């Protein structure tokens, strides 16, 4: 009788060990699987200069180079757009595999000033998008970027926009690949893209 209850205790202990082992084995595995399944896939649905809604889905198959900014910004935004333009020129025949997109975080004013004239002046392939306030906020949240209107009497119309100045690269299947921080030279962006094409 004493032996039997000892056997039961052993069986319970063995079962507990198996359960514990399985839990330790499978927990991280499950987390990995979940992370792979929900790869970071930022999205937007925003109007272009002709009022047509453009979404991330329609660009599947191309690398997306996305930048948030505003056209009344004399220093940061032209610098980044110039770099993007340089990259597009230097890509040569591979340029068709990359779609550069400029998302306005100051959409009302940028629509009024003319978005396409602005982006085309840097490179004809750059697509400028300016949605509603809510659509813009949704796109920024999806890309996990920050922007904010700041009242400033020393700026045009009494306000300026603070924003994340990075350049974001999405893969042809829409997944986040990397960020190029503000000031990354065009040559570095170019060689990164060429290594992926």
């Amino acid at each position: 009788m004493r032996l039997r209850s000892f056997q039961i205790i052993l069986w319970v202990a063995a079962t507990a060990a198996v359960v514990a082992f399985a839990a330790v084995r499978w927990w991280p595995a499950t987390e990995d699987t979940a992370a792979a399944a929900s790869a970071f896939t930022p999205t937007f649905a925003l109007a272009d200069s002709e009022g047509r809604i453009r979404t991330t889905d329609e660009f599947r198959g191309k690398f997306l180079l996305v930048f948030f900014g505003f056209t009344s910004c004399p220093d940061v935004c032209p610098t980044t757009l110039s770099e993007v333009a340089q990259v597009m020129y230097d890509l040569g025949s591979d340029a068709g595999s990359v779609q550069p997109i400029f998302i306005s975080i100051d959409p009302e004013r940028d629509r009024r000033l003319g978005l396409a004239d602005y982006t085309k002046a840097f490179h004809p392939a750059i697509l400028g998008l300016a949605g509603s306030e809510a659509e813009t906020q949704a796109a920024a949240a999806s890309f996990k970027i920050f922007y904010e209107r700041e009242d400033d009497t020393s700026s045009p119309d009494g306000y300026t926009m603070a924003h994340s100045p990075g350049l974001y690269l999405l893969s042809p299947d829409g997944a986040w690949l990397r960020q190029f921080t503000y000031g990354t030279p065009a040559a570095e962006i170019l060689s990164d893209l060429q290594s992926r094409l």
Partner: protein
Amino acid sequence: MKHFLLAASLTLSAPAAMACETVTIGDLTVEHAWSKATIGAGRPGVFYVEITNTGSTDDALVGIATPAAGMPMLHETVVQDGIASMPHAMSIPVPAGQSVQLSPGGYHGMLMGLTTALKEGDSFSVTLTFEKAGEVTVNVDVLSLRAEGPDCADAGQ
């Protein structure tokens, strides 16, 4: 493409001359004054310049004025914690024995209320006011929208 290259080489070589002018006032040397073409007059233009203080007294750039814009102001691009903002700079220090650059990604003059769109190849004057040295006027060349700076032999870029 050939025409484009020819045009590009002409426009690049021609206006470089003035941006490479050097103007001095007291111990200050002001050079490489340039701006970028704008798309229309509704958006602000930009003004970049390099100031060298060869003296032994600190000075500071406290203001700019130009017939090209109704409201020119000094600003600084600041990238902090991954956010770019552009605060108004009340004055830009020009310490003794040092050079200060107003250049892309840093200090710059913001030209609001442009009287006309700035076109590549144009030039306009800007009067800089220094705390101690007083006022000096320089000619500013309008370079292309995508220019990174004037192409001077001594620009040290």
